[in-house]
């Protein structure tokens, strides 16, 4: 059995309106039926763009938001049904690392106090002396000097603060650590330090991670399995290398093609799938497949009416698309959107002799894209929800 299993998790936030008495006028379907399994000692990467519900899903695992429906099973215990006090005690086994390293540390507590807080809450350590010893050991593990104890969060750099955030999770010796955008607030040169630290700690302590991030390159680097979310549900899930080698879902294809690679040689050969329209509002999700309003391969039948379920297509690859096989085999062509070169056409280069056909060699293209449709972004049918993107808030 997997260490952490989510089954049909839904988190719906009511939208309330009213002068004196609040009436529920609708729901934001932040997470709308997600099932996934995280194996012990592995890293599950959850990737998606803002508004896809990945952060809410991460918080729902810790019950920091109420779960509307479904179960979150950690090591045989269904967290969704635990009463408050038991859930509080269970949180020791599930910890979280936050995106904003400064904002997630209480500015008025020093490091010792911040790191003691969780231990006190769970009755770890006889006295402060014992706790301090443990904290010192953890600080050493995350690469901070022990004289950090008496200092305050604002006296550290961004990378060091994130180390403190990781140490805070580690002192409780959790089974699973949920990392919500652990590096996106950090400078590029510092991100690698934190990524390496997370990997080292996993090796050393056998930790299980659920990493939530928007940066596909980071997620791909760190994860064993990747789940791609779109508008509250998983659209694709596969082992990291399989997902990269052959993304099956149109959204994953577009997402992956959009990530720039810091290498002109590679960029010159890549193509980008440009999606049309904006992300629909999660308060008013499209019928059928949530992605059909923007999908470059959307078909007239099924896509708008029937919601595709995640189905196994072999090799641990799960995808929620009616036409995944047809798209992969090139049977279907683009119906909207645009495929463009990743590199600007007019870029002035002195092309190196070994690379005469810039942008034309298709065999290395990571995402194989069927014949480009002669359509531009302008004559698209605008996605309906793009008209009121703020309504959900």
């Amino acid at each position, binding site marked *: 059995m997997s260490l952490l299993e989510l089954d049909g998790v839904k988190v719906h936030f009511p939208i309330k309106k009213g002068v004196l008495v609040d009436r529920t006028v609708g729901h934001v379907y932040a997470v709308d039926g997600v099932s996934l399994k995280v194996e012990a000692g592995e890293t599950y990467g959850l990737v998606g763009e803002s508004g896809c519900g990945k952060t809410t899903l991460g*918080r729902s695992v*810790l019950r*920091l938001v109420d779960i509307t429906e479904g179960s979150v099973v950690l090591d045989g215990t269904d967290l969704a049904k635990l009463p408050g006090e038991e859930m*509080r*005690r*269970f*949180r*020791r086994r*599930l*910890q*979280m690392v*936050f*995106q*904003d390293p400064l*904002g*997630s*540390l*209480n*500015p*008025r*507590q*020093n490091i010792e106090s911040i790191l003691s*807080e*969780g231990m*006190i*809450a*769970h009755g770890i350590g006889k006295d402060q002396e014992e706790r301090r010893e443990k904290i010192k050991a953890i600080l050493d593990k995350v690469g901070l000097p022990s*004289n950090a104890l*008496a*200092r*305050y969060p*604002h*006296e550290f750099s961004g990378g060091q603060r994130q180390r403190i*955030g990781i140490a*805070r999770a580690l002192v*409780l010796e959790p089974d699973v650590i949920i990392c919500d955008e652990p590096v996106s607030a950090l400078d590029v040169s510092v991100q690698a330090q934190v990524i390496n630290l997370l990997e080292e700690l996993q090796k050393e302590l056998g930790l299980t991670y659920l990493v939530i991030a928007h940066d596909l390159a980071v997620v791909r680097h760190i994860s064993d399995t990747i789940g791609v979310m779109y508008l509250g549900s998983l659209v694709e899930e596969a082992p990291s290398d399989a997902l990269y080698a052959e993304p099956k879902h149109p959204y994953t294809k577009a997402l992956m093609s959009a990530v720039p690679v810091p290498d002109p040689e590679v960029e010159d050969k890549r193509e980008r799938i440009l999606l049309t329209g904006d992300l629909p509002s999660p308060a008013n999700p499209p019928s059928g497949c949530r992605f059909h309003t923007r999908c470059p391969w959307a078909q007239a039948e099924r896509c708008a009416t029937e919601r595709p379920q995640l189905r196994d297509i072999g090799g641990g690859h799960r995808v929620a698309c009616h036409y995944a096989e047809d798209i992969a085999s090139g049977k279907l062509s683009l119906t909207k959107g645009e495929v463009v070169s990743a590199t600007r056409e007019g870029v002035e280069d002195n092309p190196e002799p070994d690379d005469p056909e810039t942008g034309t060699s298709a065999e290395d293209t990571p995402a194989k894209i069927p014949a480009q449709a002669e359509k531009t972004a302008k004559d698209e049918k605008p996605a309906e929800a793009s008209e009121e993107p703020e309504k959900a808030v």
Partner: protein
Amino acid sequence: MSVATKTDKIQRLAELTATKETSTGASLWREAFRRLKSSKMAIIGAVIIAVFVVIAVVGPYLTPYAPTAQTWRGEVFPNQGKFVGPRGENWFGLDHLGRDMFSRMLVGARQTLLVGVVSTLIGLVAGFLIGGLSGAAATLGGEAGKRVDSVIMRFIDMMLALPSLLLAVSVAAVMGQSLTTVMIAVGVVQVPVFARLLRGSMLAQGGADYVLAAQSLGVRKRRIVTSQIVPNSLSPVIVQATLSLATAIIEAAALSYLGLGNPDPAIPEWGVMLAQAQRFFDNAPMMAVYPAVGIIITALGFTLLGEAMREALDPKLRG
């Protein structure tokens, strides 16, 4: 590369980086205090307040004459417009009953300070409890908590809707004329101000990531409120308390002026003195000027310090 040059370069690098020693263990409060110390406004305010407090504490023992003794009764004829101004034996002159104004000012300082501090404390403590309860209920109490908060806040809104002086007058009218009345009346006026301020501040902090982090650590809700939310919500309340001392003194003076203050002539108070002087303003303006200037300078001191604290505690200026 030889070992010698290697240590050399490390040493040189250490020298160059050593110039900016990182501070160790300075809490936000201490940093705010450091900023406060370097603010001219704060120092002027603090000096004024210190002088005022010293006068209030030791003043009554330094009075050259008893403040109530009508020693020079025979020299003052209010009906004929004949008053005695400053002179060698009476530095501030005499009041309308022939009492020494200087002695009365010294004794009055203590009363004024007492009114300011006690009424602000009443407002602060009551406001803190109400606002804290409301804020805690709203941030971590779930649906039921939101309802509790809503009820408390509507009540506070009602209090705020009344003009503050009218509220004070009503309280004074119910309780009768006394110094205690003035203190309570002025204090009650401050309650909704503090309550709203603390609640708003707590609500803002309640959404912060570190509160979420504490929740995910499994910290108990009560402790999240006391150790995470409240300490971070105090800054505006502290500033407001300082500023309130100034308004409390002015409002107490206003109530006294309206005749709701302490009727006991044995205990002079600046507000009462100002009220009494009003009748004789045409012939003896100085009788009003002394208490008025006293009130203004004191209020100014508290305001200056409060504003300086607001700046020092502003998280945007950190660093």
